[in-house]
């Protein structure tokens, strides 16, 4: 079998957790299939190759330190063309999406998105994708080359962290047409709350129904001395500010207790909170995917539960 290429992801000079999550799994899969696990780094990240101990070797494409959809995709495309790996693992992230699809289409390779699990199967890999808002797991068997986009948090980051000294190869790549130019990184506005530091979070999702009803969640948060959080749709609707958003493009939180109210549990949200010590989910749909990640749950109307809870706690 061929090698497994892991496209590393970094921001502000640090490798992101997804890199290690993928490395750990790649090493495992490569081991089983007799190939090598090769990490691809960008810009000056080859300087931190020592963190990528899980990889057998590192291919450094150089180029810009700042992510650029066009040049990074072109670079990866060059590497994949040259190395012909049997599997390319890319993060199912904002950065990964630009790279994975572009490379796969240009090279006419199979793509599999939203990978929550992977294993070797005869002649190739068996990839499980979390689809339809997390309601269905779809298994795809791939053989020959494939690009797999891996969900953040699907695998364990610690299992992929290992100090080491993989050989680093400088690789000349195509730099792309120059039609996309990075200008600057924009930090989020300083907010009145940093939910990544909160011990207890009361998170609301679409089930809250209306902006006014968020008040109820606020009452609960007050009593528990907790902060409010929310899923993306509430931020898009203007009901809450981005500082409260938990999920793929929001905050990643690990509170002691995460109370999810009216949140269905789509992967993009889970990604942001699955590391919470205790997850309690209240959702009137007993089949909601959130109950798979939650530690405790109640399949009840969130308004009834929260009202009663607030009443009881007030006494």
């Amino acid at each position, binding site marked *: 079998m061929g090698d497994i290429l892991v496209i590393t992801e970094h921001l502000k000079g640090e490798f992101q957790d997804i890199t290690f999550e993928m490395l750990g799994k790649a090493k495992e899969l490569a081991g089983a299939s007799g190939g090598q696990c090769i990490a691809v780094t960008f810009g000056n990240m080859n300087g931190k190759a020592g963190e990528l101990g899980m990889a057998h070797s590192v291919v450094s494409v150089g180029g810009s330190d700042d992510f650029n959809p066009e040049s990074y995709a072109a670079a990866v495309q060059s590497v994949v063309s040259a190395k012909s790996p049997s599997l390319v693992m890319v993060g199912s992230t904002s950065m990964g999406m630009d790279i994975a699809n572009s490379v796969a289409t240009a090279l006419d390779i199979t793509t599999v998105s939203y990978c929550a699990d992977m294993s070797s199967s005869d002649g190739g890999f068996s990839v499980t994708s979390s689809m339809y*808002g997390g309601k269905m797991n779809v298994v795809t068997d791939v053989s020959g080359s494939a690009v797999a986009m891996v969900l953040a948090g699907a695998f364990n980051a610690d299992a992929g962290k290992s100090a080491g000294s993989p050989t680093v190869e400088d690789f000349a790549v195509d730099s792309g047409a120059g039609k996309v130019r990075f200008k600057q990184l924009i930090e989020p506005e300083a907010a009145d709350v940093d939910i990544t530091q909160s011990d207890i979070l009361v998170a609301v999702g679409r089930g809250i129904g209306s902006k006014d009803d968020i008040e109820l969640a606020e009452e609960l948060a007050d009593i528990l001395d907790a902060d409010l959080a929310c899923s993306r749709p509430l931020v898009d609707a203007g009901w809450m500010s981005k500082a409260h958003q938990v999920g793929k493009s929001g905050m990643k939180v690990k509170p002691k207790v995460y109370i999810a109210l009216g*949140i269905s549990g789509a992967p993009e949200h889970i990604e942001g909170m699955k590391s919470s010590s205790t997850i309690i989910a209240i959702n009137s749909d007993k089949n909601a995917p959130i109950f798979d990640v939650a530690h405790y749950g109640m399949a009840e109307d969130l308004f009834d539960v929260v009202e009663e809870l607030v009443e009881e706690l007030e006494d």
Partner: protein
Amino acid sequence: MLSPNEQIAFILLVVVCGRLAFQGFNRIFKTVKSGAKADRSDNLVGRFMNALIDVFLQKPIAKARPIVSMFHSFIFFGFSFYLLVNMNDVLEAYVDGWTTIGSDNIVAKLFNVFADIFSVFVLVGMIFFLYRRFVQKPKVMEFNTNVKLHPGVSAGGLKKDSLIVGIFILIHVGSRWLGTAMHLAGNGHTDSWLPTASIISGLFSNWSHASLETGIHVTWWLAMGLIVMFLPYFPRSKHIHLIIAPVNLALGRKTARGAMDGISNPASPGSKTLSDLPWPQVLDPWACIMCTRCHEVCPAHESGTPLSPSALEINKRYFINEQGNALFNDAGETALMDYAISDDAVWSCTTCYACVEVCPVGNEPMMDIMEMRRNQVFDAKMPDELADVLRSLDEQGNSFNESARRRQKWSKKLDIKLKNATKEPVKYLWYVGDFASFNQNCQDTTRKVAEVLSAAGVDFGIMGKKEKSAGNDVRRTGEEGLFEVLAEQNIKMLEKCDFEEIFTTDPHTFNTLKNEYPDKGGNYTVKHYSTLLLELIQSGDIDLKKKLDIKATYHDPCYLGRYNGIYNDPRDVMKLCGIDLVEMPRNKENSFCCGAGGGRVWLPDHDDMTQRPSENRIEEAVAVGVNKFTVACPKDMTMYADAAKTSGNEDTMAVKDIIDFVLEAMDLPEPIMEEIASSYPNEEVSTEPQSEGLDL
């Protein structure tokens, strides 16, 4: 008898003022004509006869404010009679020797006594009204501070107009009365047919003949001259309601209240400007007497929000007056929502119909709002929450954003199996409705209805997941297209079913099925469940064994009562259950809306709201000394159950549905429920749970 110069002068005055007045009236006519089409030409004779009779009996105004209405009647009868009086005055001026004073003719004597008494009526009435507006200044005549007002109104225009009219009437009638007194003084003796004039004739007893003669001429000119000079002011004043109100009443809408008019121009539905409104609604401002009866009964205004139906009509009128002839050019393109009513106010209306019901001159401010909503919605201008609900109704067929398959979930707790009306024939098709199906405060009531009907052996069934919202409130938020789609789909489904009658617990559903679906091709016999319950009790199918010795009050739902005239069926049901019914002051057609209609149940309360209409109503019930508040509508149930809590009356006021009383009075034994379960075929409609949608 006037001097020849005076006679000529008066004729000239009539001509000049008449011409000016005519121009004013002509502008009214032209403005009304510029309104959109509406057909009110049916049975014109009958319409006018009925209107005149109603006006003569003072019925429209007596609907509210009885004491004030009494004083109005004084003025009405007095002023009406004054037509004859003025004619007599003209004769006196032009016909040598003509007078009714001192005549032996019985007609003349009767004329005199009426003229005398009515003069005083009018004066007393007018003084009362001036006192009311300027001294007493009742709060109800004020607009909430957040109501959009035309600058002319804010500057005190209403008071100014009232003052002008009031003073005119006082002088007109007063001077005529004084003139008569002077006449008597001149004759040297009183006349028992002119009692009050006789009394004050004493004031002039020592006036010289010449002075009296002058006085009589002066009072004549004051009376008659003033009324002629007043003519051009007429079209700019609320005083014109004398003429316009009866016309407005005669040409009023006679079709079913619960049937909204269709859209005349689908490419541009509803009304943006004054001329987009159907012409009877363009006529409304001139009928308006600025009495504020409408906003007194308006749940939106009463709860502090920016809607005043009164301000709407008044603003229209002030705008028209201000624009003058510019109205027929570009001023006519000004949007109503720029000057007459604010965006917030348009969406504050609950469509309860109280304003239309109470208006003494037949105005329909609510219809203006409906037209404006249609226009706004066509351009997707509406509160965001409403857009979400409409999307839900479009995609899922219900306003709760729940999967249609969950529509029958309420029945899972029942021991009985319900017939599926889409699969087998039933006698009664039960159109359950969104709220009764999905809202957790209402589901208990829905289940009890099923239990009662089952126990009574009624052959009924439901459509389950095939049922969609009937669309009554969708139409009232202005989304005519969505209403049509829902109606089409529902009618298609109903056509597949085999049933004799439809019944529903929801008055909104009842209203549209009964009044609006025929126009869309769905003609059914539709009943509210209170009617059905009454029939079943009277026929003995429902056997009431216990007499409940309870006192309770009953709240008339807007769409059952005011809209469809059904007041007694629910009351009869309650009485047959042995309930001692205590009425609230605002009952039957004066019922006070819970605040949920017109899509309001889907919208957040306005920031300025001081007290929810439903809380206000609960307090009314508390005040009549009952502890049971009876409803016959699922939206009422959820609104009042909540209001009882939020108004602090959770332990003092229980909210009951009429079905609660029926079920209790039936006193069913336990084993019967199991027997019933086995007598229905095993038809269970799938009720899968649903998810909350993609959540990131």
